[in-house]
């Protein structure tokens, strides 16, 4: 510990999360930081950006992802959709040009959701700049530059900087090049030490870094640690289940549900064929679902109450995989 005290363990669960590292990109955290270059993944960043948006008179707004993986890969998209809605409300949408700049080849990481989301971006008049691997931010000229020499100008850059695990992981010699901990994607056991388990954003498993994922993982992890204590095989297997609401503005939202092997598709949730929530379709009901989730979060999730009808393994019924 920082104060020099020492704790021994038989079993260690690491859940140190991920945080932004804007210093990874030349010129990102420089003169224009929190003047025209903002993040919204920290409290300070979000607050500074809110104050900026209150007085901003318009121009080129870039919503930008530096590199993958990031926590909540849909958050920047939500930001773009909500910005569209925000400027419409302020009756200044015509003064703002919104572009979504991403290192990926489209709006999201999975093909079917990408097609649906690309369509929504188009409908909301948000331009997409894909395959953009940023090298630097030019503070004088207010442009971002990628390794291929491509440039995109901005008046307001809202970026999601590189996400990294905590330095404690690097100091412990346990991390990969982004300080994420190599972890068995099914059992959630560390690959290097059998008495260390990893929960949530801190691991390197190929699942979304999302609260819903950490929640589903926790149920698996509990069982596996019980197995480990008894000296049994770690039989519970995490399937990569993620479930995310995407606020799309104007009181609507979209819901996606997916895992390691099944990409998000259309269907109904949580009751196959019934809903009431529709997967991959923008609807008011989905927005209501997100609002209801606030209550569920404080009154059920934090107390460890199981949410009825939502299981840690993804439900395949009620989905149109074709």
């Amino acid at each position, binding site marked *: 510990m920082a104060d020099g005290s020492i704790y021994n363990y038989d079993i260690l669960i690491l859940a140190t999360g991920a945080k932004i590292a804007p210093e990874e990109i030349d010129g990102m955290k420089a003169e224009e930081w929190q003047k025209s270059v903002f993040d919204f993944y920290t409290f300070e960043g979000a607050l500074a950006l809110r104050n900026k948006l209150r007085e901003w008179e318009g121009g080129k707004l870039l919503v930008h992802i530096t590199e993958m993986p990031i926590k909540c890969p849909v958050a920047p998209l939500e930001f773009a959709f909500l910005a569209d809605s925000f400027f419409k409300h302020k009756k200044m949408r015509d003064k703002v040009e919104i572009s979504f700049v991403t290192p990926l080849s489209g709006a999201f990481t999975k093909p079917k959701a990408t097609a649906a989301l690309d369509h929504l971006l188009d409908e909301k008049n948000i331009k997409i700049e894909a395959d953009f691997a940023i090298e630097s931010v030019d503070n004088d000229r207010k442009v971002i530059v990628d390794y291929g020499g491509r440039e995109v100008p901005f008046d307001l850059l809202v970026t999601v900087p590189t996400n990294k695990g905590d330095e404690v992981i690097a100091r412990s010699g346990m991390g990969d090049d982004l300080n994420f901990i190599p972890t068995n994607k099914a059992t959630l056991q560390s690959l290097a030490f059998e008495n260390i388990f990893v929960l949530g954003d801190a691991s390197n498993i*190929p699942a979304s870094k999302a609260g819903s994922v950490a929640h589903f993982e926790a149920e698996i992890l509990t069982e596996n640690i019980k197995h480990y204590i008894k000296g049994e095989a770690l039989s519970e297997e995490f399937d990569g289940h993620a479930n995310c609401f995407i606020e799309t503005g104007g009181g609507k939202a979209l819901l996606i549900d997916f895992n390691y092997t099944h990409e998000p598709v259309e269907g109904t949730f949580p009751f196959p064929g019934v809903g009431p929530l529709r997967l991959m379709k923008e609807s008011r009901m989905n927005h209501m679902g997100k609002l209801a989730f606030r209550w569920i979060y404080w009154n059920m999730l934090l107390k460890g109450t199981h949410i009825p009808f939502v299981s840690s393994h993804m439900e395949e019924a009620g989905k149109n995989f074709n």
Partner: protein
Amino acid sequence: MEKEIAGKMIKVNDEGYLTDFSQWTQEVGAAIAEENNIVMTPRHWEVIAYLQNEHKNNVALSIRKIGKSDVLDIKEFYQLFPQGPLKTSTKIAGIPKPASCI
């Protein structure tokens, strides 16, 4: 599905990535490169061999990893394979498109 590449029927996925690496030959790689408007040089083939080797050793490929390798830097990677170098080079190499993307 199958696609005719360099005169042979090759198994590919719907984005055109080989699904069976044993079908890869340098001719197949060269034909895919040509489709992507890339003229292969010995340096290109060195990079392709490096990527194939990384893949064989189960190293997840990313732009960042390439930048940290001692084989080439990101600038050169872009010069060799402009426009989405990781996407294009892995396709030519006959290995899966990197799933850095979740």
